[in-house]
C-alpha cells in the first residue's frame, strides 16, 4: 500500500501512531497507575504520541476529570523509571485525560462513555479511533465486551487489549474467547503478554534469525537441552489472595514462559509480519507433547516455600503470608519438562521453572550444547558450550566456551564472551508496556497472543493443572525453604535425564 503520509522517514523516526483515544477500564487500579499511564507519558516525552490523542479512564470511583489528572500526575511522578518528569509535557498530556465513573455492569456507563468519546473525538481530533484496554478483574472481561457492543464498530478503528490471565484453564479460555468474539473479531483483539514486549525477548528473534552462524546449530543435533528460568526473590507481596488461586504454573509458565519457549524454538517465518510470526509461534506451541496423566509426576514438580531466615531476616512461608489460606495448596514454584515433537527438537528437553522466594530475581534462557564427541585433552575434558540469553536483570547474551589456560600444558578453562544489551546500546530501552501500547495503537499484533496460541498453551499445561488439582495423599507443602532454588524433586526431575539445573 502506498504511504499516505509523505513526511515519514522510517530510518529516523520511531514507529508511527495514528490519532486515537485509549479507554482504560480499571483506571483506578495498580496497572494503570504503575505501568499504563507512565508508559503513555514516556511516549509523550519522546514525541511518539500523535497530535490527536486522549486517554479516557473509567472505574467505579466517582471523580472529576481534574481529580483524575491529579491522581495520574502523582502516579507518573512516582513510577517514571529512568526518565525525568517534564512539567510542560505533562500539562499538554493532561489536557487529553478524561474520566468517566460507573459500574462495569451498568449500561449507563457505556452510554456515558459513548457520549464522552464523541466529545473527545471532536476536542482532541482522535479521528474516531479507539483502543479499549481491559485492566480489570478477568471475571469482568465478558461484561465489558458486552457493554462495548454498541461501541465496537463506528468511525475509525476499534481494538480491545486484554490482560492475562486468558482463562484459568482450557475450558474457561475457550469460554472467554466466545464471549469476546461475540462483539469483537479476532483481529480487533490484542491479548497482552508483557514478556513478549521485552526488548530482550524480541532480541531472541534478532539473534536467531539475523545471525546465520547460530541457526545451523539450533537443533537436536547440537543442542542437548534448554533451561528457562524465571525466578523472583520476593514473595506474593500483597497479592496473596490472587496468587493462591493462580500459582506459578498458571501465573508464569502457561503464558510468559511458554511464549518465551516458543520464541526460542519456533521456525523462522518467511517474513517479519504479524500473521507469519504468530503462525510459527502457534505451530511450535501445538508441537509441545501433551502429558498423559501418568506422566505428569515425572515431568512436573510443584513447590511451595516455607518460612526461612534470609540474610538474618525471618520471612514467612507462603501459608503465613497475609491473605493466604493457611492450608493453601498453591504452587509457588513449578518446574516442567516440555518435549517438542517436531523434526528440529525431537528428544531435546526444555526445562522450564518459575518460583517465588528464590535466592535472586533472574530470568534467563540457557541453551546447553552437546559435549565434544571425543576429548583430546587428558587433564580436563572441555565443558559443553552454554549460550545464555539473559532477560533480566542484566539483559544480554553470554556464550561460554573453553579456552586454554595460560602456561605450559593443555589445561582448559571455561570462559565467557558477553554481550550486554544496556552497555552496547547505551540508550534507555523502552519498557514492555511502551512497546506493546505503541504496537496496539499502530495496529501491529506481532507481539500479542492469538487465541490459537492461548489454547495451545493451555493444552500443554492442562494435564498438569488437572493432576495437581486432583492430588491425594499427605500434604506435600511446604517443600522448599524461602531463599533456595526450589524443591529437591525438581533436581531429581532433571537428574533422571542426566541433567542438573544451572545456578543462574
Amino acid at each position, binding site marked *: 500500500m502506498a504511504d*499516505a503520509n509523505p513526511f515519514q522517514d522510517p530510518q529516523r523516526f520511531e514507529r508511527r501512531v495514528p490519532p486515537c483515544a485509549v479507554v482504560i477500564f480499571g483506571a483506578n487500579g495498580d496497572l494503570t497507575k504503575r505501568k499504563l499511564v507512565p508508559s503513555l507519558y514516556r511516549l509523550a516525552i519522546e514525541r511518539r504520541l500523535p497530535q490527536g490523542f486522549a486517554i479516557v479512564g473509567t472505574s467505579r470511583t466517582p471523580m472529576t476529570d481534574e481529580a483524575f489528572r491529579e491522581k495520574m500526575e502523582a502516579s507518573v511522578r512516582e513510577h517514571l523509571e529512568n526518565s525525568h518528569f517534564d512539567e510542560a509535557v505533562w500539562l499538554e498530556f493532561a489536557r487529553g485525560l478524561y474520566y468517566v465513573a460507573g459500574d462495569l455492569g451498568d449500561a449507563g456507563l457505556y452510554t456515558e462513555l459513548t457520549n464522552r468519546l464523541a466529545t473527545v473525538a471532536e476536542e482532541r481530533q482522535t479521528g474516531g479511533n479507539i483502543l479499549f484496554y481491559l485492566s480489570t478483574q478477568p471475571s469482568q472481561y465478558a461484561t465489558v465486551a458486552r457493554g462495548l457492543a454498541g461501541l465496537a464498530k463506528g468511525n475509525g478503528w476499534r481494538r480491545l487489549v486484554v490482560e492475562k490471565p486468558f482463562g484459568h484453564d482450557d475450558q474457561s479460555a475457550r469460554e472467554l474467547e466466545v464471549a469476546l468474539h461475540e462483539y469483537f473479531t479476532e483481529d480487533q483483539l490484542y491479548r497482552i503478554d508483557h514478556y513478549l514486549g521485552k526488548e530482550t525477548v524480541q532480541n531472541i528473534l534478532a539473534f536467531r534469525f539475523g545471525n546465520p552462524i547460530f541457526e545451523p546449530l539450533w537443533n537436536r543435533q547440537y543442542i542437548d537441552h534448554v533451561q528457562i528460568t524465571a525466578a523472583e526473590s520476593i514473595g506474593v507481596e500483597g497479592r496473596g489472595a490472587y496468587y493462591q488461586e493462580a500459582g506459578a504454573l498458571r501465573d508464569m509458565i502457561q503464558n510468559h514462559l511458554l511464549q518465551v519457549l516458543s520464541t526460542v524454538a519456533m521456525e523462522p517465518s518467511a517474513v517479519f509480519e504479524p500473521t507469519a510470526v504468530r503462525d510459527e509461534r502457534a505451530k511450535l506451541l501445538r508441537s509441545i507433547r501433551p502429558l498423559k496423566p501418568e506422566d505428569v509426576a515425572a515431568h512436573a514438580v510443584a513447590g511451595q516455600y516455607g518460612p526461612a531466615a534470609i540474610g538474618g531476616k525471618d520471612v514467612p512461608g507462603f501459608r503465613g503470608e497475609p491473605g493466604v489460606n493457611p492450608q493453601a495448596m498453591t504452587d509457588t514454584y513449578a518446574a516442567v519438562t516440555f518435549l517438542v515433537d517436531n523434526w528440529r527438537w525431537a528428544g531435546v528437553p526444555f526445562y522450564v521453572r518459575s518460583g517465588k522466594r528464590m535466592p535472586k530475581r533472574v530470568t534467563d534462557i540457557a541453551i546447553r550444547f552437546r559435549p565434544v564427541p571425543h576429548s583430546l585433552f587428558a587433564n580436563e575434558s572441555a565443558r559443553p558450550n552454554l549460550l545464555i540469553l539473559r532477560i533480566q536483570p542484566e539483559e544480554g547474551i553470554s556464550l561460554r566456551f573453553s579456552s586454554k589456560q595460560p602456561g605450559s600444558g593443555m589445561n582448559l578453562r571455561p570462559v565467557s564472551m558477553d554481550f550486554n544489551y544496556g*552497555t*552496547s546500546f*547505551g540508550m534507555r530501552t523502552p519498557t514492555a508496556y511502551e512497546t506493546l501500547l505503541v504496537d496496539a495503537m499502530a495496529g501491529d499484533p506481532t507481539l500479542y497472543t492469538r487465541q490459537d496460541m492461548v489454547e495451545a498453551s493451555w493444552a500443554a499445561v492442562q494435564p498438569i493443572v488437572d493432576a495437581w488439582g486432583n492430588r491425594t495423599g499427605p500434604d506435600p507443602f511446604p517443600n522448599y525453604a524461602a531463599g533456595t532454588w526450589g524443591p529437591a524433586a525438581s533436581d531429581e526431575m532433571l537428574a533422571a535425564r542426566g541433567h542438573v539445573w544451572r545456578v543462574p
Partner: protein
Amino acid sequence: MITAVQPEKLLKELEHVWAELGKGHPADALLRACSMTMLVATTDPKDEVDLKNTLADLMRAHPGRMIIVRIVDEPEPVLSANVTAQCLLAFGGRQQLCCESIEIRTTRDRLADVYSASLGLTVADLPVLLWVKDIRLLQESSFQPMLQLARTILVDSVPLGPSILPALNERRRAGWRVKDLAWTRCTAWRETLAQAFESTCLQGRIPEITKVEIAYAGANPSVSGLYLRSWLAPRLPQAVFEFVPCPPRRNGNLQALRFHSTTQELELRAVDDATLEIVTSSLTTRVLAPARAEADLVEEELSILGDDPVYEATLAATIAPAPIAK
C-alpha cells in the same frame, strides 16, 4: 611521547594500557568494546574537555576506537601521539565498558604522515567514520588525503553555511556517505510534522497546501531551513515556498513552518527553547523538543548504518533548488 606516529608502537602501548587496567580486577570486570573506528579531526585547541565528554557520551551507544587528530598551528612541524582508555560503568551493571583512544597531535604539513599511520590504526573489519569537527578542513588541500580514510564523513555545516554544501554534494556524488548535523537538527521538526500528518484528515488536505512559509531568525535562512525547504518541496509539489524573517522564540535560526491551504492552516512553531507547538484550526498541541547536545546529534547519525536516501536527495536538491521567494 612518540615523535613519529608508528602504528605498531601505539597498538603495543594500547595493549599495555589494557593490561594495566585489568590489574586488580576480576576477569569480567572490564569489557573492551569496539564497534567502529571514529577519526575526529579538530583544530580547536580549547575543545579538549568538551570533545572528551562528547566522545564519552557517544561511547555508551557506539563504543569504538577513537582516533583524535588534533591539528595545531606551530612554527615547527609537530607529530606526536599518545594512547588512553576510557571506562564507564554500564547501566545498573557491575561491568565497566572501556574504549580506547589515540590522540595524534600534528601540524598541517604532517597530515600525510597521519594518514599513512591511521591506515594501520583503524580496527579491522569494522566501519570507519571521519568526523571533521572543523568543517573548514574540507577545503584545505593538506587535509584531502585524510578523507580517503573513511567512506563516511560527518560534518556540521553551520559554521560555513550554505557555501559548503556544493563540496558536500561533490563528496556524496563521489561515493562518500555524507552526514551533516545541520540536517540532524531538523529531525525534531520533521518528526513532529510527520506525526501531525498521521491524521487522515490532514493527509487528505496535503494536495490543498499552496504555500509554505519558513520563518527564521537572523540575517538569512540557515542550512537547516534550506534543507527543510528542499525536503518539503517534492512532497508538496504544488506549493510555493517563502522564507520570512521573524523574531526569535528559541535559539537557532529556524522558528516556524506555516502551511497555507484553501481550507486549513497548519503551523509548527517554536514556543521556547524546549517546546514546539502544532496549531491547526481545531487543535493546538505541544511537544518537547529541546536543543540537542552534539553527542546526541552524532549518535542519531551513527544509528543509520546504511545509506540515507532522504538526506542524500535533500542535499542534492539544496544545491540546485527551486527559486526562493524572499
